């Protein structure tokens, strides 16, 4: 067993676990953060995407021990007050999702992408999300949600006084 300390959603966490345990399983089983979903366990579908030190990471391909000392953000950590963050709100407004299984990965991927590319257009967003598989929506509503979030952010940045 290996002891690790890391920060998850702003709080310091410790764990004692087998070295082979994935970050995804550690988050889900040991920390009860079941918002992170497992869709393929071989790094293709992106459902398990979390943010580690500011970068989107597939938590099924990362061992929990590799996250020691790092800062991990999961879907549960985006809006700590239990409400919705701006991207989540835009996705709700856009009817982005159906079954919701790919949702945490999509939201985390889009969060990391928008923070680096706040001015992204549709094609860039599609490429940024192309490593996250959704089986329900045909993607348009998800892309629209990300676009709406980006537009709102730009609107509030450019004109903070407008309603």
């Amino acid at each position, binding site marked *: 067993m290996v002891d690790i300390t890391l920060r998850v959603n702003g709080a310091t966490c410790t764990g004692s676990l087998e070295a082979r345990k994935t970050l995804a399983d550690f988050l889900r089983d040991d920390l009860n953060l079941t918002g992170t979903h497992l*869709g393929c366990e071989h790094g293709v*579908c992106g459902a398990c995407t979390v943010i580690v030190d500011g970068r989107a990471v597939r938590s099924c391909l990362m061992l929990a021990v590799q996250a020691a000392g790092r800062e991990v953000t999961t879907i*549960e950590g985006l809006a700590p007050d239990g409400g919705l963050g701006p991207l989540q709100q835009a996705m709700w407004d856009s009817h982005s999702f159906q079954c*919701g299984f790919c949702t945490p990965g999509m939201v985390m991927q889009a969060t990391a992408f928008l923070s680096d590319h706040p001015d992204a257009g549709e094609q860039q967003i599609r490429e940024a999300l192309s490593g996250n598989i959704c089986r329900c929506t*045909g993607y348009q509503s998800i892309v629209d949600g990300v676009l709406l979030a980006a537009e709102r952010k730009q609107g509030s940045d450019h004109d903070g006084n407008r309603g």
Partner: protein
Amino acid sequence: MTAIAAERYTGASIKRSEDPRILTGAGRYVDDIKLPGMLHAAFVRSPMAHARVLSVDVSAARALPGVVAALTGADLEAMTVPGPDLLMTLMGWAGPTPEFTLLATDKVRFVGDPVAVIVAQSRYIAEDGCDLVEVDYDDLPPVVTAALALDPGSPPLFANLGDNIASPHSRSEFGDVSGTFAHADRIIDFHIDVHRHQNVPMEGRGCVASYDADLGVMTVHAATQSVHVTRIGVATRLGMEPDKVRVLAGDIGGSFGLKIGASREELAVSAASRLLGQPVKWVEDRSENLTASGQAREESFDVRAAVSNDGDLLGLDAKMVIDTGSYPGMGTMVPAIMQAMLPGPYKLAALGFESTAAITNKAPYVAYRGPWASETFVRERVLDLIAKDLGLDPLDIRLRNVAPRTDPPAVMITGRPLAGVTSRESLERVAQLVDFPAFRRRQAEARAQGRYLGIGVATFIEAAPGPRSPEGPSGPMGLESMRLRLEEDGIVALFTGQMPHGQSHQTTLAQIAADEFGVPFEQVRVVIGDSDIVPFGLTGGSRSATMTGGVALHGARQLKAKVLDFAASVMEVSAQDLLITDGNVWVRGDPATAISVSEIAGRAASGQFGVDADAKLEVEATFDGGEGGWSGGTHCAIVEVDVETGIVKVERYVAVEDCGALINPAVVEGQIRGGIAQGIGAVLLERSAYGEDGSFQSATFMDYLMPTACDVPRIEIEHLETVPLDADVNFRGVGEGGMIIAPPTVVNAIEDALSPFGVRIYEQHLPPGRILELISTGID
């Protein structure tokens, strides 16, 4: 003073009540369930397509620390009741019935067939245990194709059947088939293949079974399209009284037809929990999902079309062979639906239809979004091929052949009336939205530059629910039930057997009931997912819009009448003078009399209302579908084929749809777009691939390619104004249409793009390699 809301929720894109939990990671999917003392199961699966099982040695697995049980097929056989696929039992199947056990005992029949189950303290240890199980197999010749299966010399997969026929050859004729073909100007023959592909919900199958030995009650937390069908399955195969089985379900990560009933694995896990007296969880991984959960389609058709020189499609004669894979179930039911639907919205005078269902060493055939869709693929492909032969435009040949909307309605040659079908209108609307002459000019210019654009159209109808039979009293889809109750706090609770897995029923049903009853949307709660409290039901077959939407409407109306009767007693007025709007009961013309619905409910619950009135504010409603009706529409795709790489890009996609009155347009359009995306994936990317030895070659997402955000274009959707057939309920199902019609739409466009090469397409799967082969064959 009360504000009287005039707006209606029904018809508006109300934001989903499911989303706040889903967007914050607070959804509860089956793998999120953690029970005290819960164990974890993993399955040992066959690496062989067809083999005798000589021995299964689980002793090393049993000795592994952390392993609690290692059960073989023989162990499970002693603990469970034998029987065929649950679907066959439920649908009254009377044909050949293969005998098999939950886990393989005498033989394995496909790569992935479960052979043993290991139950351990963690999934990691359970999988370690699987690695220690030694199975001795004796190879049998694999029966990998339907053609092999139909060879009388092929080794039978099931000893009790003696051959590999799941459903014996049958032929039906409608109209004067021989006369129609004898008098036709032309008879054209085709062989058309549809390839094997599969549902692939992002969440695989799974369950947590928890047996309480003291109470003798089995609780199964399931990912299912129906808690009751799962309950029946578990009770039947575990030999339990149905009332001792409770099935619970929460959020479900998609299904598309896959998660109906109880799978062999889920039954084995339930039996293990009963044996051990502890909860056992099993959630399949992606490899298991692709290999063993089930696959769909794979039908081949020999089609003859009787055609006039002017382009009238007079008759079709189709011989179908369906590859049901191993362990037949749904694949035996599908041919009858295909036969009924093959005429589509066209005025076909004669139809001959033959089918045979073959058993092969592949994963079982399961329902997948529009299970009968291949009939539409065949018909819409045939129409384009005929149009090419006759030099007709694909829009024109369809407009020429669709049945006119008449009163009484035209009747399909297979029997159902085409009441309210707007195929012609959808074709005409597509022609307005897409400027075909301008496209043809652009296509010609592009070709001159070595670029190959193509346009395709296709038309479908879907019995969602279908029309009421003109002869009998029965509705189009049986009955749908709902219990509705006004709770003490004024919440209108709807108890439904629907088990949504992306369809947004907690939003859409609340919209309908809120309007009908007269409360704010937020005051309606849709209760799902507990077999102890919801009535029988199933989410599938695109039934919920009409059937459940309808019972929500009529049930809310009945509950409202009951509440008004009680309120009238309390308020000492006539019920006829009372209204409910915006959550308040008031006397018509006198808003000052308004009392909130919650106050009325509280009075009823208190038992202290001083009058002789029925205070049980609850109704059990049923709905038979009313007049029913068809969904349908016409889709159009514009594609560009790169003839160097074989890559197809869908440049534009237009869908003109008629699914009746829209409950929630954003939800409807999500269903349409999602189905189209699956159809694009089916044509360009997805294939459940088997080798000649029966090996499975697409067990990961590196091999089974799913459409991504870069493969699916922005989809333009228009809704036609529908023809109302029913006085109240004109919502129609829209879950399956996109997946039914996108494959022929895209293939028709690809063939059009490749027409300079003389390419004719008789298949559905067109990945880049196949496109290049078609081009080179066409050039030769």
